[in-house]
């Protein structure tokens, strides 16, 4: 573990050292790019001494997650409707494509006008931005042709509902989760962009405030909190994905296999 981490740590330390040196020697002006030491100092102040970041951190996190929940809910509902009913798909798809090719971020002023300066507009933009990747992946997953297994189900006399729930839904899960992982990250972009534009709380507001004050160390320290939110969201979804789509990875398969054997034994006693 340490042996494998060592090269990474060495490279990272070297980058920080060169960066610090470039500023100390005057190669880069510290007013534009803060030295790592200034970022560190700002982090200590924001995260430990004053602790001002946490309130903003959780507001942005909340905006992203609730925006994601709304966007994902609508995307999965529309994708399911489209998969089940061909005419529905014909009429929904053009709007989804138009929404996708329109730069979602450009909707920011409109959304702020509609939903105001508060949390509502952040949630709304997050929902709009995460909609498309989830919609497309879910629809693709549900409509991916699987002729051999569909023929098997038909031969076994399966109803349409059984075909959908026992074959198409589980088969679509890997692609759907890929979409959810992308969507969760784009929801964060939506929340932060809306904060940049017009807001009173959230890490986006904090960061633009520091940048206007040319307090670059604090600005980068705030940016790193967004990275933290991004990592937290991504790995939470990765965790759920890994357990829901357990058949993809060997270690998970083996764990699931043992769990089913235990459940069988507990239920039947043999």
């Amino acid at each position, binding site marked *: 573990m340490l042996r494998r981490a060592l090269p990474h740590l060495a490279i990272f330390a070297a980058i920080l050292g060169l960066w610090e040196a470039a500023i100390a020697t005057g190669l880069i002006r510290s007013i534009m790019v803060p030295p790592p030491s200034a970022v560190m100092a700002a982090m200590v102040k924001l995260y430990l001494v004053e602790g001002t970041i946490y309130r903003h951190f959780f507001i942005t996190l909340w905006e992203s997650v609730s925006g994601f929940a709304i966007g994902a809910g609508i995307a999965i509902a529309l994708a399911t409707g489209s998969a089940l009913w061909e005419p529905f798909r014909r009429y929904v798809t053009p709007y989804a494509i138009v929404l996708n090719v329109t730069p979602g971020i450009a909707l920011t002023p409109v959304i702020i006008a509609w939903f105001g300066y508060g949390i509502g507009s952040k949630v709304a933009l997050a929902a709009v931005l995460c909609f498309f990747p989830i919609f497309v992946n879910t629809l693709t997953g549900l409509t991916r042709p699987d002729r051999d297994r569909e023929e098997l189900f*038909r031969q076994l006399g399966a109803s349409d509902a059984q075909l959908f729930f026992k074959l198409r839904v589980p088969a679509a899960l890997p692609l759907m989760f890929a979409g959810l992982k992308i969507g969760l990250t784009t929801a964060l972009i939506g929340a932060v962009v809306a904060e940049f534009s017009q807001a009173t709380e959230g890490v986006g507001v904090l960061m633009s405030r520091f940048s206007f004050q040319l307090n670059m160390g604090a600005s980068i320290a705030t940016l790193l909190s967004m990275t933290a939110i991004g990592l937290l969201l991504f790995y939470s979804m990765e965790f759920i994905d890994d357990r829901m789509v357990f058949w993809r990875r060997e270690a998970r398969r083996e764990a699931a296999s043992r769990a089913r054997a235990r459940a069988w034994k507990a239920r039947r006693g043999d």
Partner: protein
Amino acid sequence: MTNDAAPVVTGTHVGKTFANGAVVALENAQFNIPKGTFVSLVGPSGCGKSTLLRLIAGLIEASSGEITLHGTPVRGPRQDVGMMFQKATLLEWRTALENVLLPTELQRKPTRADEDKARDLLGLVGLGDFAFSFPAQLSGGMQQRVALARLLQTGADVLLLDEPFGALDEFTREHLNLELLRIVGELGATTIFVTHNIAEAIFLADQVFVMTPRPGRIARIVDVPLERPRRLALQTTPEFNRLVVEVRETLGEL
């Protein structure tokens, strides 16, 4: 062979065309298959052997003529036939046991007896210790055994097999063929087996339907009066070779 028994599967002037009659996949097929008979359908691609199998399964509808199963005409998929494909077509999120239980589950909530049957069938195909393994943890041959157990779980007494071991290596295939013979022999099931391997077709069958393409039709039905149980050494005997020659002649290869 039990030729005296009433036929389980019959075909009268069965034809199937595709593309509004432009492609004749099968023409005027006539056959009677008695209970417990093992029939091989053999022929080159395009001879209509898979079409015939799908017609019997009720997965596609005949353009002309009629197929009956247990005396009633085939109008769609039914529960007295079971089918197995070249691909194992297992559900990768289900254990071997759960895959075997699928046919039951699509009809009703499985009872304890259904579960016992599924476990026994996994034992019958030699996978007793792999009931809780997922398909990705099994080899190709083992996956096909699960598919065979699933087919038997349906309780169907007419088994339709479309090149079931065609994607496996020669050794595994021979081994599974022998096991298949043992199992269908024990169950007394009527079996229709599609293959493009002439020796395999003869080795397994009581009757070989030799099929030729353009248009697809049954050119000849060859009886295989070889003793059972069949052993691999049978394939080097003169009687076996005489049958191979007979089939090849019908296919116009000699």
